[in-house]
C-alpha cells in the first residue's frame, strides 16, 4: 500500500468511526426525545413508502374565498381547508369506511346514543401548540353556536337537539345524541378541529366569521392538516408548505407529508386547466370533463401523465319541474301567471313519466359525455354499492309509451303534431340550465329534440350559474331546470335534505307550506326513520322503498351520472383517485414523486 493510500484508508476508517459514533449518539437522543414527548401517538400509514421532498402543483378553477372552515361553502375554499385541517373521525375516500384520525378509537354505548372518543396524544397544531380535548370542546361549541352561522351546524342537530359534548379527561371526550343515529361516526368527517389558543379571543368578541381570510398572516392560522399556508398571490396562486408537526408517519417511520410544498394555481376554467395539465404545468387534475378527457387521452401515450376513468361517481343530474306553491297575487313576480298556468301539466304524473320515457339517456351519455356516464333511473348511482336498489329497471326510451302516457292523461295532438292539453292549449315550456356546463347544455338540446318528437315545444335557456341558482332556490321563476347534485357521502343521510319535505335541496318544491301527497309523506317518514335505525339491513329496506317511490312518482327525472375522471403525472406515487370528493387529493400526505 502506498503511503498516500494508507493515509486515505486511515482517514476513511476514522470518518466511518465518527459517523458510527454520531449515529449511536443520535439514536440515544431520538429515544430520549420520544419518551420525553409523552408517547406521541403517530398514525402509521400502510401505503407505499415514498421519498420526501418536492413540490406538487395542483389547480383550482376559482380562487378560494376564505380559509375559515366555519364560513367556507364554495368548493375551492373547502379544498384548501381540507389540506390544512383535520377531523376526529375520517371517511376514507377510497374504501368509503370510517377510520381513526384525531380520535384514535371510539366506543358506542349499548343504546347507541353516547360516543366516547379517545384523542391522539402528544400531537401539535401547525404552529407547534399542543392539541387536547379543550380544542375539541371549543370547536363543537363554535360550530353549534347559532351566532357563527356555521354551515355544518345542521348536521350536528339530531331530532331537533344539538349534540351534547363532555370532556372526560384531557384526551377523552363524550358526545351525547338525542336519539340513536345511523352511522353517527360519519358525522365527524370534515368537521375541522380549530385551535382554541388562536381563536378563543375572536370567538368571545363575536368576530369569528370574519377571521382567517386569505390575507391573514400565515402565523395567525394553524390547523392539524398536513400542510399550512405559506403565501397567497391574488389571481395567481396559493402556496402551502409542509406542516412539520403532522401526526402521520409511513411504515419506515418518515414523517408525512412527503411534499415540501403544494402550490395551487388558479386556472379560471376547466379548459385552461386541461391545457396546462397537458403542457406539464400541473401535476394533478381532478373533475375532468369527458371532452377534455378524450382530448388528453390522445397525448397519454407520449408518457408524462396518466388518466383515470373511475366510472360513475356520486353525482347525478336530472330534469325537474317547478312544483312550488306559487301565489298568483305575488305582483313582484310578473312571470308567475304563466308558470301557474302550466303547473297542472307538471303536477300530472303521466306527463312526467311521458317525458322520462321520451328522453334518450343513451344519447345523452354518448353525445354529451362521450360515453363516460351512466344512464340513471333514480338518484342513487351505481357508485353507491351499499345502497343502490338493483331492482329498479334501467331507463329505456320509448316514444310510443310516452304518447300512451300523454293520451291517458287527456293530452291530444293537432294536425301539425303539436301536443295540446285538455283546454287545447299547446304544450310550451322552457328548460333552464347552467350556461357554463357544456354537458348540461348538450343534454338540454338533446332533450329538446326528443320532446319535439312527442309534440312538445321546448325552449332551452342557458343561464349564468348564480342566476340559475337564484331562480331555482329563491325566486322560483322557472318552468323546468336541469341541475346536478352530488351525494357528499356513501350514506342515505347525506341526501336527507333532498328527499324530506322542507329540505334545503328539495329542489322541485322548496316551499314549507305545500300539501304533501301520500307518497311524499311516506318518503318523509322513511327518511326520518332510517336516520335513527342502526341496523344496515333494515335501513337498506327503507332506502330501497324510497328509491322505488321516487322512481314511480318521478319528482325528478334523473338523466345520467357522469364518470369521475382524473389525471396525474406519471411519477406521482400513491395516487389513488376516489369516487368521493375530494377525488384526487384526499391522501395528499402520502403522495410523492418517484425519483
Amino acid at each position, binding site marked *: 500500500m502506498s503511503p498516500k493510500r494508507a493515509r486515505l484508508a486511515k482517514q476513511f476508517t476514522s470518518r466511518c468511526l465518527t459517523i458510527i459514533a454520531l449515529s449511536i449518539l443520535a439514536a440515544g437522543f431520538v429515544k430520549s426525545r420520544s419518551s420525553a414527548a409523552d408517547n406521541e401517538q403517530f398514525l402509521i400509514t400502510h401505503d407505499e413508502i415514498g421519498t420526501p421532498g418536492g413540490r406538487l402543483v395542483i389547480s383550482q378553477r376559482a380562487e378560494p374565498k376564505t380559509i375559515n372552515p366555519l364560513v367556507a361553502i364554495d368548493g375551492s375554499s373547502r379544498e384548501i381547508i381540507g389540506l390544512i385541517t383535520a377531523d376526529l373521525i375520517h371517511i376514507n375516500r377510497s374504501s368509503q369506511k370510517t377510520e381513526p384520525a384525531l380520535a384514535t378509537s371510539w366506543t358506542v354505548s349499548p343504546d347507541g346514543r353516547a360516543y366516547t372518543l379517545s384523542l391522539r396524544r402528544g400531537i401539535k397544531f401547525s404552529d407547534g401548540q399542543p392539541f387536547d380535548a379543550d380544542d375539541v370542546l371549543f370547536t363543537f361549541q363554535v360550530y353549534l353556536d347559532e351566532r357563527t352561522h356555521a354551515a355544518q351546524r345542521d348536521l350536528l342537530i339530531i331530532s331537533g337537539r344539538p349534540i351534547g359534548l363532555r370532556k372526560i379527561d384531557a384526551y377523552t371526550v363524550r358526545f351525547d345524541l338525542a336519539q340513536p343515529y345511523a352511522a353517527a361516526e360519519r358525522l365527524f368527517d370534515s368537521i375541522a378541529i380549530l385551535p382554541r389558543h388562536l381563536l378563543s379571543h375572536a370567538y368571545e368578541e363575536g368576530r369569528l366569521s370574519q377571521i382567517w381570510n386569505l390575507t391573514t398572516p400565515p402565523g395567525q392560522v394553524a390547523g392539524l392538516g398536513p400542510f399550512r399556508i405559506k403565501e397567497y398571490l391574488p389571481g395567481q396562486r396559493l402556496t402551502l408548505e409542509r406542516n412539520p408537526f403532522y401526526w402521520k408517519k409511513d411504515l419506515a417511520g418518515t414523517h408525512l407529508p412527503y411534499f415540501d410544498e403544494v402550490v395551487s394555481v388558479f386556472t379560471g376554467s376547466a*379548459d385552461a386547466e386541461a391545457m396546462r395539465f397537458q403542457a406539464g404545468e400541473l401535476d394533478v387534475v381532478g373533475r375532468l370533463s369527458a371532452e377534455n378527457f378524450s*382530448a388528453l387521452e390522445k397525448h397519454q401515450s407520449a408518457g408524462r401523465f396518466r388518466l383515470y376513468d373511475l366510472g360513475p361517481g356520486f353525482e347525478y343530474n336530472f330534469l325537474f319541474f317547478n312544483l312550488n306553491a306559487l301565489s298568483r297575487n305575488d305582483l313582484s313576480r310578473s312571470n308567475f301567471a*304563466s308558470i301557474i298556468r302550466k303547473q297542472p301539466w307538471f303536477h300530472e304524473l303521466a306527463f312526467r313519466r311521458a317525458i322520462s320515457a321520451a328522453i*334518450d339517456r343513451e344519447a345523452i351519455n354518448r*353525445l354529451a359525455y362521450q360515453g363516460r356516464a351512466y344512464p340513471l333511473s333514480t338518484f342513487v348511482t351505481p357508485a353507491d354499492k351499499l345502497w343502490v336498489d338493483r331492482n329498479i329497471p334501467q331507463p329505456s326510451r320509448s316514444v310510443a309509451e310516452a304518447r300512451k302516457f300523454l293520451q291517458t292523461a287527456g293530452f291530444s295532438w293537432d294536425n301539425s303534431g303539436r301536443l295540446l292539453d285538455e283546454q287545447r292549449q299547446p304544450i310550451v315550456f*322552457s328548460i333552464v340550465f347552467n350556461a357554463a356546463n357544456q354537458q348540461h*347544455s348538450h343534454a338540454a338540446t338533446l332533450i*329538446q329534440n326528443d320532446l319535439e318528437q312527442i309534440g312538445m315545444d321546448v325552449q332551452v335557456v342557458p343561464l349564468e350559474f348564480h342566476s340559475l341558482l337564484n331562480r331555482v332556490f329563491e325566486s322560483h321563476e*322557472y318552468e323546468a331546470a336541469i341541475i346536478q347534485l352530488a351525494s357528499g357521502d356513501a350514506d342515505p343521510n347525506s341526501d336527507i335534505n333532498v328527499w324530506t319535505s322542507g329540505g334545503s335541496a328539495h329542489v322541485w318544491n322548496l316551499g314549507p307550506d305545500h300539501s304533501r301527497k301520500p307518497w311524499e309523506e311516506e318518503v318523509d317518514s322513511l327518511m326520518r326513520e332510517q336516520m335513527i335505525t342502526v341496523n344496515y339491513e333494515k335501513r337498506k329496506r327503507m332506502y330501497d322503498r324510497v328509491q322505488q317511490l321516487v322512481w314511480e312518482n318521478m319528482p325528478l327525472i334523473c338523466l345520467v351520472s357522469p364518470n369521475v375522471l382524473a389525471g396525474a403525472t406519471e411519477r406521482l406515487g400513491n395516487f389513488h383517485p376516489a369516487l368521493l370528493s375530494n377525488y384526487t387529493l384526499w391522501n395528499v400526505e402520502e403522495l410523492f414523486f418517484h425519483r
Partner: protein
Amino acid sequence: MVPRNKPYIAFALLAISHGLLLLAGFFAPYDPTSQDRELPFAPPTRVHFIDARHKLHLLPFVYRWRANTTDRGYHEDRQTVYPVRFFSQWHFFATDPPAKIFLMGSDAYGRDQFSRFLYGGRISLFAGLVATAISLILGMILGGAAGFYGRWLDELIMRAAEIFLTLPWLYLLFAVRAFLPLHIAPNGVFLLLISVLGAIGWARPARLIRGVVLSAKEREYVLAARGFGASDVYLLRRHLLPEAGSVILTQAAVLIPTYVLAEVVLSFFGLGVSEPAPSWGNLLANLRQYGVLESYWWIFLPALALVPVFLAYYGVFSYYGYYRGYYFAGDGRDGTRNSLSFMPPAKA
C-alpha cells in the same frame, strides 16, 4: 386585404355571400336543426370522382361515414356509391339517405355545419347591420350636434358619451334580460338585446364625428356658406356630415364584425340565439371548448368562412371612402397614420 383598385372583388364577394345566406333554404342541403345522433362530430364528407374500383364518374359522389369501433373517429364505407344529386327536391345539392353530405362536417349532435352556417348567417348579419345602423345614426345625430353647437350641449353630450363608454354593457344586458319572461321567443329577445347593444354603442362614433364636425365647421367654405345665410340643418347635411363620411364608413366596417362577434359573447351567457336555432355566434361558441379545439378541426371552418365576409365589408367601405375622395382611416398615404385624415387625395 381586398385591393382598393379592384372593388368588384369585394362587391362580388358580398353579393355571393349575401345571396347564399338569403337563399339558405335552397343552398343548404339539410334542415339546420335536424340531428343525426349516429354522426356526432363527423368530418367533412369527401366528394369523389373516382371510386374504389378506380372507375371514373362524371358526376361527383360520396361514401357513407361509419363510426370506428376502436376510437371516436369515422371511416368511409366504400361498399356503396351515393351520387351527389343537383337541383333535387328544392335543394341545390343533396345525396341519397342514409348517406349524408356534410361540406363543413357535423357538430356535437350530428347537425350539418354548412346548413347551420348559411341559416345562421341570416340572423347574425341582420343583427350586426341593425345594431350598426342604430349606433351610427345615434352617433351621427348626437356627435354632429355636439360638434356643431358646441358649448353646453357639447359638454352634456360628451360627458354622457363618457358614461356610455364606461357602461358595463354585459350587466346592462343581464338586467334587460331579467325583466323579460323566460319563455318569449328566443330570437325576439336576441334582436331586442342587440338593439340595446347598438343603442348604447353610439358613444365612440359620436366622439369621432364630433371631432370632424368641430374642425370642419371652421373651414372657409363652411364659413362662406354660413355667410350666405345657410341654415344649421343645411350646413350639417350639405357640408359637415359628408365630411365625416370616411369616419362613418370606417366605423361601419369595424362595428359590423364587432356586433356579429358580440353575439358570441351573448350566446355564451345565454343571452344569444338559443338552441336549436343556428347563428354564427353559436357556431363559433363551439370553439370555446378545449376538447373540441383539440380534436375536430372542421369546427374551425365556419370561423374561416367568416373572414372573407368581413374582409369584403372592409373592402367595400374602404373603396367607398376612397371614391368619395377621402383617405381611408390611417392608411398612411398622406404621410400620417392617424385615424382622422380628411385631406383629399392628390388627384382631387
